[in-house]
């Protein structure tokens, strides 16, 4: 009897949306999820914040130092350089796949012969494991034995030092990143293109738009929300990028390709400076959050098919 009435009440409460009526006895059901969230997400961050306020080297006494670790960041040239490398690497690793992926999507959106097969081959880099990719590209980058310099020699350029020279290392790594992640952008944009209405293109044809103008004034603005999704995914991915960088260059030559992520790794696990490493992690995290918020805001602004009005 009591089961009946209480379940009745649940249905009633849900159907009129009066969740406030939930009695305290329902709270236990939330507890497991709450514990998991606190244990897995909240606790590590609180603990990191706490560590970042300590001088804490593995095997030594730990000591509270307040914001000293953060102050140290501003004078740490290696950290500032890592910031710059991260920004350049991220910007290029977003832009290049975005442009190429959009172009590829436009190509695959037409009635190419054997389109399905070509598309399948095209997305394969996405599925490869980073260590294997690193191995193959390291060999291709080799100044004497690598296939890239051989190809360049065919058109009379080179030889380049690729990842073995500070001035080209970041661009070379962006090349790998672009090769791997252009297909993802292509898939996202392809989805956007498939969702486009066809009728406006006929009006545009009558209105006198050339193929380029149809792309510039119809396609591009209409797939902008999808491009923004690609930018968000790519930005966060590139910022966090670690595996490819670490396996190909370990931040070298010297520190020429050291990103925040790699520097953080060295500080924490090579120098065992846990306190300082935590401070870097916190700053890095704040950067990622800020970037995400900006991008999400831009994405919302770019939507033409939802939002303001209705």
């Amino acid at each position, binding site marked *: 009897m009591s089961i009946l009435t209480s379940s009745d009440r649940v249905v009633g409460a849900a159907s009129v949306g009066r969740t406030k009526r939930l009695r305290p006895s329902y709270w236990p059901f939330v507890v497991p999820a709450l514990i998991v969230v606190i244990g897995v997400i909240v606790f590590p961050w609180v603990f990191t914040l706490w560590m970042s306020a300590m001088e804490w080297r593995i095997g030594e006494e730990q000591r509270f130092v307040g914001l000293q670790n953060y102050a140290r960041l501003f004078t740490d040239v290696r950290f500032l350089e890592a910031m710059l490398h991260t920004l350049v690497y991220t910007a290029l690793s977003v832009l290049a796949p975005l442009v190429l992926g959009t172009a590829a999507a436009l190509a695959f959106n037409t009635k190419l012969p054997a389109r399905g097969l070509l598309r399948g081959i095209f997305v394969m880099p996405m599925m490869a494991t980073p260590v294997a990719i690193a191995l193959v590209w390291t060999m291709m980058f080799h100044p004497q034995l690598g296939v890239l310099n051989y190809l360049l020699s065919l058109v009379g350029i080179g030889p380049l030092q690729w990842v073995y020279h500070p001035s080209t290392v970041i661009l070379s790594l962006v090349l790998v990143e672009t090769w791997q992640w252009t297909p993802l952008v292509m898939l996202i944009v392809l989805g956007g293109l498939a969702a486009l*209405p066809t009728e406006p293109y006929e009006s545009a044809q*009558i209105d006198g738009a050339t193929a380029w103008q149809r792309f510039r004034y119809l396609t591009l603005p209409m797939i902008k929300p999808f491009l923004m999704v690609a930018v968000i995914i790519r930005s966060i991915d590139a910022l966090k990028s670690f595996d490819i960088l670490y396996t190909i260059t370990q931040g070298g030559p010297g520190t020429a390709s050291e990103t925040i992520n790699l520097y953080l790794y060295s500080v924490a696990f090579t120098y065992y400076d846990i306190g300082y490493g935590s401070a870097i992690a916190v700053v890095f995290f704040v950067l990622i959050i800020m970037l995400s918020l900006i991008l999400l805001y831009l994405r919302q602004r770019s939507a033409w098919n939802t939002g303001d*009005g209705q």
Partner: protein
Amino acid sequence: MASVSIRNVRKSYGTVEIIKGVSIDIQDGEFVILVGPSGCGKSTLLRMIAGLEEISGGTVAIDDRVVNDVPPKDRDIAMVFQNYALYPHMTIADNMSFALRLKNTAKSEITAKVERAAGILGLGPLLGRFPRQLSGGQRQRVAMGRAIVRDPKVFLFDEPLSNLDAKLRVQMRTEIKEMHQRLKTTTVYVTHDQIEAMTMADKIVVMHDGIIEQIGAPLDLYDNPANMFVAGFIGSPAMNFIPGSIGGDGFTTEGGDRLPLGGRVPAASDGRPAVYGVRPEHFRLADDGMAAEVVVVEPTGSETQMVLRPLGAKAGREDRKRELTWVLRERTGAKPGEVVRIAPDPALAHLFNPDTGLRL
């Protein structure tokens, strides 16, 4: 301002011929309506005039210039699509000015033209909005505004009203007609709705299965349909077709009733099978008329529509299923089950060849 001349135009998709040789002459400033049932090829023909569809055979000429190989943008036409085909990410003003902006028209001229079109269509307050913020009728008007702004030689409309509710449709019908009377631009308008065709057209082209059944002025088609298809398609409710045969100075239905021919007996046709066509509004009560049982009475206020079942002496079970429609202007106390005697007005009736469908 332009004339359009369509000569023997054909269209095939693969081996299937959709348009089977169509010729239409459209005068400068004329409002021509292509009407026919769904799938008869109206849109295809219109899209060939627009240049959106390749022409498989024959020629389309605008102002005596053959435009078969001229791209849409150089044909100086404007088209209004059934689903409006507005640019969803542009404001109404931008939608209307897009064509002009592509042509690098001066800003002041664009503003003037957009404002003029907005004025004609009452779109002024909506110019800053997006298509998704507009009702169906307003979007429809924007699509027309976009066409007006172009100031084209020819307007093409593809079922522009079929996504609107009935009341709005009647209102827009009037607006389009007024717009045409004002701008006097040559217009080709496609619809499957014969009432739209009757009320708006200078000239109607009745199409069926990729061919033209008849071309003529609205009332001309109504009064003198060339064949049973046109007779049945134009007019609502549809014309009654009564099978039977010609005999003496009259017509005998298969049910055995005698219908008058008013002395218009075709030569050498005694005993010949034929179809007697009479519009629902052309029956009247007559003591010597055919007997029929009232099946349904549908008063609409201004007129009354009745479904009748002839009770001819020889009427078999099949014949009794051949119901007739009668529309009368006055109200009636007739009830289902009652028997009335009605006769057609022979001066307004038609005879058709049952095999070819052609009018005798």
